[in-house]
């Protein structure tokens, strides 16, 4: 279980390390990639954070696609929990960013 607010940051935001704590690159590199490389599965708990800007979600999850992980691999590895009011929609946003990054990659190739 990866609880973003507790294990990473209560204030996720920004894309790159230069953008400060809670950026998408650090979350991807330190929390998502190790799980994908291990072949295990993980639940990502979105509750407790103050919100998720699209730029953070795109960098963290869309970035996985640009690193070479397939959407199928990502969806197979991670499941999501969001019980805070108004947070379920972030799961849809994550899916959209993964699918968008996949189609952008396919268009580019």
């Amino acid at each position: 279980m990866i609880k973003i607010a507790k294990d990473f940051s209560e204030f996720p935001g920004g894309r790159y390390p230069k953008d400060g704590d809670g950026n998408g690159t650090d979350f991807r590199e330190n929390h998502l990639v190790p799980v994908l490389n291990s072949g295990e599965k993980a639940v990502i708990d979105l509750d407790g954070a103050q919100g998720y800007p699209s730029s953070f979600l795109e960098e963290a999850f869309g970035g996985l696609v640009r690193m070479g992980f397939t959407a199928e691999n990502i969806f197979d590895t991670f499941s999501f929990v969001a019980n805070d009011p108004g947070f379920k929609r972030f799961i849809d946003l994550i899916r959209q960013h993964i699918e968008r990054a996949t189609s952008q990659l396919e268009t580019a190739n």
Partner: protein
Amino acid sequence: MDFWQTVFAAGLGAFIATMGKSWLTHIVGVAKLDESLRDYDVGLAKKIIFETRDLAVEYWQLEADDEKLPVIDAAVDGRLTFLGQLLERLFAAETLLLRRINLQLNKFHDAVTDGNFGVSGRTAEPNRAKRIEIESFKLAHETVVCRRKMPRKFFRIF
């Protein structure tokens, strides 16, 4: 039936009628209050949508070194999170309407915070104003339409 039995029966009838009327008034009144609160929430949601729009338009006009940016960034984030909570509470009982609202809310959320939102060293993108404006009005419209589609409450017992 003697006199006192008649008086007792009439008193009991009047008491039951009064209690029944009070109870009906109460459940209709509570339902009216629920409807008023829903309308209030829609008004509040529209206010937050357009506040967020104004902040976002200002945000994307500024260059990365402007010292106002972190403040606007936080104000936008806070409003978007609150808006999601407010709309989910409003449409919690109507799954299809909530789904419609969340689809449009996510488009607005993307218009405001995708790309280089929160990225240091970014350049201003004043052209995003058009997309932000369009998605904000679409969200306001969707909120009003979905509110009108909610089944109206005429009474609520509990």
